């Protein structure tokens, strides 16, 4: 379990394997291009897509996750598509890739549309767009922003945009959402780019730049609090996108995945997935059988029409608080450090004492007027100061690792791997059994609060 916590090591190893030409000699592959946000290849893999999301879609093929300045550079800028070309060129050469599928999410469609339309361009490092585009076999746009989003108009016009949830801001590249990529995504600007040839692909087209285009999109935000479908990929994102949908910012009065209206995501391309339980966040994580269908598309197998697609039944999400005895205060032993720790717990009186008690958030869902899930600044579980013994502060890679992490519950409302069949760390053990639980606790050896892993007996 300790090793499972060191996601960075695993990620670095995977990166090394992928970049080693002696290891990977495949001729075909899959390239993943993220949406708005400045990402490095590793942050794009670990934070934007997640390994689980990638693996659910790539059909076992060699893959490349590119990272590029997708917020500070608009999709048509050389500083945006240039690094994509450079990274793909290196990967193709190192791995003798002769053809590959491109999968994009959100505004990742824009730099790829630029490449498809301007094959004579070259990157700042001198790599030819044509050499890359020549080897593209197909493009799968996931939740593409093909005609802009009213959210972009909203944030740039009103000059204000309070966090609906951090999730929403993340899709605009973090806190600095008034950036070139967001301005590019204004609906009026996209109308110009779609008209003047900046971005390839006209309304209704199914082939762009000689490449077949498939579109995966959601058309509703499903936010049943106790549904696995809603929890897939993070309930916080779901409620944030639900709020955006309710507020009409993700396409007022039209169907939307919470961020991109279907009039934008369906501007062109073959729509292979059109799902009412696939919000903007979930479409990059293979939720609700998306991974299976994208895999079929990657392998050129038949994808059932959207109206004939089937989904695994949704399941109820059990209470993490019960699994981890979050109500109870007690001494315990930290499995990681073997130190004695004090498990804070929460009694009902603490709910109204004016202090924000971490375990009260978990046990009761709220404390001092604040509710979970939340990544807001008041959430102690995302404060790195409370993780002195750890190199990471509650990364998503802790999902599904066998430890019910209170920090993930506070962030997302659950701790489980993506997909409704993914493992759920917070299923309460049977009487006589136990759960492993990660939680903030007072470490008597260190003399401070640390994130401890303790055994919760039942």
């Amino acid at each position, binding site marked *: 379990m300790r090793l499972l916590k060191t996601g960075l090591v695993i990620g670095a190893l995977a990166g090394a394997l992928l970049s080693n030409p002696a290891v990977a000699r495949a001729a075909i592959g899959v390239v993943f291009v993220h949406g708005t946000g400045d990402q490095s290849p590793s942050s794009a893999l670990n934070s934007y897509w997640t390994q689980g999301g990638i693996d659910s879609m790539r059909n076992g093929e060699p893959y490349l996750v590119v990272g590029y300045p997708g917020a500070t550079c608009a999709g048509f800028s050389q500083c945006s598509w240039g690094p994509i070309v450079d990274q793909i060129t290196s990967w193709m050469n190192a791995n003798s890739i002769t053809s590959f599928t491109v999968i994009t999410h959100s505004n990742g469609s824009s730099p790829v549309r630029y490449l498809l339309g301007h*094959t004579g*361009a070259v990157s700042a490092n001198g790599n030819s767009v044509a050499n890359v585009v020549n080897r593209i076999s197909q493009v799968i746009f996931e939740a593409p922003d093909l005609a802009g989003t009213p959210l972009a108009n909203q944030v740039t016009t009103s*000059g204000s945009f309070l*966090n609906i949830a951090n999730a929403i801001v993340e899709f605009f590249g973090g806190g600095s959402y008034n950036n070139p990529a967001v301005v590019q995504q204004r609906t*009026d600007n996209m*109308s110009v780019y779609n008209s003047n040839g900046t971005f390839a692909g006209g309304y209704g087209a199914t082939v762009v730049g000689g490449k077949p285009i498939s579109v995966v999109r959601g058309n509703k935000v499903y936010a049943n609090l106790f549904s696995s479908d809603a929890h897939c990929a993070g309930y916080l994102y779901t409620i944030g996108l639900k709020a955006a949908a309710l507020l009409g910012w993700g396409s007022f009065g039209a169907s939307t995945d919470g961020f991109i209206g279907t009039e934008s995501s369906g501007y062109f391309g073959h729509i292979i997935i059109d799902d009412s339980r696939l919000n903007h966040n979930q479409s990059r994580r293979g939720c609700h059988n998306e991974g299976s269908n994208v895999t079929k598309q990657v392998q050129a197998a038949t994808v059932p029409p959207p109206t004939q697609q089937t989904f695994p039944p949704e399941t109820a999400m059990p209470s993490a608080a019960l699994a981890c005895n979050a109500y109870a205060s007690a001494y315990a032993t930290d499995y990681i450090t073997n130190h004695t720790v004090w498990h804070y717990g929460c009694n009902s009186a603490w709910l109204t004492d004016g202090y924000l008690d971490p375990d009260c958030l978990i046990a009761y869902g709220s404390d001092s007027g604040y509710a979970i899930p939340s990544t807001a600044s008041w959430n102690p579980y995302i404060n790195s100061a409370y993780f002195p013994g750890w190199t990471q502060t509650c990364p998503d890679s802790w999902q599904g690792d066998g430890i019910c992490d209170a920090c993930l519950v506070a962030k997302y409302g659950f701790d489980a791997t993506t997909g409704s069949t993914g493992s759920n760390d917070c299923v309460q053990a049977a009487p006589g059994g136990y759960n492993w639980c990660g939680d903030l606790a007072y470490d008597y050896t260190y003399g401070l609060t640390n994130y401890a892993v303790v055994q919760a007996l039942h």
Partner: protein
Amino acid sequence: MTIRRIATSAGLALALVTVGCARDNSTATAGSSPGTTQTPQETAVVNTENAQLVQGDVAPTRLFRRPLQPGEVQGSGLVSVANPASPKVPLRLPTPPETRHFKETVIHVPAGSAPTEVQLPIDAPNEAWVMFIPKGNDAQRGETALRSVTLRDPLGRRADVEAAREAQSKLEPDQAERLAAGRISRPITMLHLNNNMARGTYAVQVGREAAATGLAIEVRLPNSPIELNLTPSAMQFFPGQDSWVTIGLGEGARIDRVDFTAVLYDPSFRAARRVPVVRVGNEYRALVSSVFTEQDAVGTWNLEVRATGVSGNQRFDRLGSTAFGFAVPTARLVSVGHPRFERGPEGKITTLAVDVVVESEALDRYEISGTLAATTPDSLERPVAEAQVTDLLAPGQHTLTLRFDAGHVSLTKLGGRFALRGLQLFSLGTNTLYHRLAKGLDIRFPALRVADLAAPREITPAIEHMMRAGEFDLTTP
């Protein structure tokens, strides 16, 4: 930047025809492929100055010089690409400048303000929305700020409590869903008005916390007859060309008085300058060209227009914006011609080629694109192949050749007299469109039969996908 007028004299036009049949050394690689023979076909060369412009066309009247920008990397070498196309979707003319409609406004209370009251003219309360949006990105502070904001109707009564309840039921009609949505910590206040609520000027009382935090108040009035409409006169403007944005207020609205404020935002979305608005006949125009010069940044600009006034003794306030391209062209298409077939050893057509003459005033990497179209029995034009050629061109005239792959055309099983369509010149140095002729000067290739076409040189994975998807099969839906 110096300006060079495009000559329109008969002498130059004649010279251009000559150039259209020749090639300069810089583009020699764009010529015929080794091992092929050219079949002399029609050698007509059509000058772009004779072009009949259609919807969405862009044609510069002047060319400008442009120095390379520091750090600008353009690359060198000619790149000629041929792509297959799906005939399934008929060709469309480029999208015309769209008219954007607005029955809304946004009013700002800047951060750091003192407590204040904001007048909110609401001429059509039925189905109206009012949103209070705290500024900044501190959600905790925003929630606190919203508690100090109230809405009062024209009679001075609290209107926000009932309107908030209306909003809840409107946004989520399903009770179970509404309960679930109730857990959403709402970062903004959503208020929904109805037909029973008063028409007139509402008052938003902005308390100390909200005024200090800053507040944007958004109002949407979907049932108001007063609709701000904005329509650019073209999708793209060039310096020196008359260009404007037409402003309308809805045909059903009786407007007693109106004032406009129009502000241009540059491609970085920074407010750049005010634009005069004048009445021309029965419409208003924001005279954009009067404030543009060739020194301005190229790219996509936005015009934000606020209209305030009185209609039937009722004040109104509307805010909207639109976008358009601004380019300072350094090149143009001069002529197109010499459509011809190139044949392989077996006499089959391997390439359909056409020459395009470009005049450049500045070193840049220029891209020429075109689509080959067949006319099907349903009288629709359908794409059968695409071609693009790109090269770094110095000032002067150059001939580039669009080369369509006959093998790609053969996949569509369409023959006949193909037309050149969607001809355009794009600058990769500035990422702007300089010249577009959707009808491609109506250049047509001689008639051919499908049997005349060579088979594809290679069935690429992309073509395999297209075949599997039925992209070349017009007999299936």
